[in-house]
C-alpha cells in the first residue's frame, strides 16, 4: 500500500537536487490542446504518450504541458512544439503513434515532420 512515508522519502531524496523547478524559458515546450474538442478527439492518449516518451527518452530541457482550445477544433488533437528562436510547429490530427514519431524525429533529432503539420494540410 502506498504510504505517506514513501512520499516523505521522495521529498528527502529530491530536496538535495539543484534546479528542481527549473522549467527554463529557454527549453522546448510541447503543448497539447485539452479543451472539449481536443479531449473528444483523443488528446488524452496523445498527451500521455508524449509525456511518457519525453521522460523515458530523457529529451533534454523539454516540458510537456496542456492548453485550452487553440481555435482549430477540426484539426484536433493538436500538438504545438515551441522552441526558442524557431518558428512554432503545429502538428494536427495527432495519435499516440504520430506523437512518438515527433519525439524521435523532431524533439531528439531536430527534424520537423512536415507531413503532419497544419501547413501541409492547408496546401
Amino acid at each position, binding site marked *: 500500500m502506498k504510504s505517506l512515508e514513501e*512520499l516523505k522519502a*521522495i*521529498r528527502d531524496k*529530491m530536496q538535495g537536487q539543484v534546479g*528542481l*523547478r527549473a522549467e527554463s524559458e529557454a527549453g522546448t515546450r510541447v503543448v497539447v490542446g485539452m479543451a472539449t474538442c481536443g479531449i473528444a478527439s483523443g488528446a488524452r492518449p496523445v498527451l*500521455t504518450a508524449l509525456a511518457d516518451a519525453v521522460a523515458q527518452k530523457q529529451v533534454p530541457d523539454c516540458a510537456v*504541458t496542456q492548453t*485550452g482550445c487553440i481555435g482549430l477544433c477540426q484539426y484536433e488533437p493538436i500538438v504545438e512544439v515551441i522552441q526558442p528562436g524557431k518558428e512554432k510547429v503545429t502538428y494536427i490530427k495527432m495519435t499516440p503513434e504520430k506523437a512518438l514519431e515527433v519525439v524521435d524525429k523532431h524533439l531528439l533529432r531536430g527534424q520537423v515532420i512536415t507531413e503532419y503539420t497544419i501547413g501541409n494540410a492547408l496546401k
Partner: protein
Amino acid sequence: MMTEISLNILDITENSTRAGAKVVHITVEADEEKDLLVVIIEDDGCGMSKEQLASVKDPFFTTRTTRKVGLGVPFFREAALQANGKFEIESEVGVGTKVTAEFQLSNIDRMPLGDINGTVHQLVIYHPETDFVYKYIFNGNSFTMDTREFREILGDVPLNNPEVSEYIKEYLSENKFKTDNGKKF
C-alpha cells in the same frame, strides 16, 4: 460526444481550473444497490452570473472567443440524461460552481466510467496551481486523495516531479482497487 464519463470529468474540471479555482472537489460514487452513479465537481472558482448559468446548457453559448460553440456542459448533461439520470449545475459569482450528474448505473446507454485514475492524475500533474480533493466511493467503501496533504509533506518538491507523479499514479490505482476490488463499470 465523449466516449467515457471520465473524459467528461476531465473536460468539466478544466473549466474549474480556468475559472481560477484554488480547490476542486471531485466525487465519484457508485452504488449497485441503489443502481446509481453520481459525479460531483465542485470548485471555488469565479462562478457564473445568472445569465451565463441559464445559457450554459446551450451548445451555442460559450465564453471563449476562439470559437462559437461550447459543448463541454451539453455533452456531460446529455450523457447523464440518456442514462436515465439527472444533471444539475449551480453557480454563484465569486463563490464557485457545482456540477452534479447522476446516471442509472445499469442503464444500457450509460457510458463506462473509463480511466478515472488517468483523469485525476492528469488534472493534478498539469495544474500545479490548483489543489484537488478526489473522493471515490463504491458500494459504501471509499478513499480520498487530497493534494493539500501531499503538498504539506512535499514542501518545495512539485507535484509534477516525475517520481511524485509516479507515486500519485500508483496511489490512485492501489486505492481504487482496494475500494472497488477491480470492478469495471
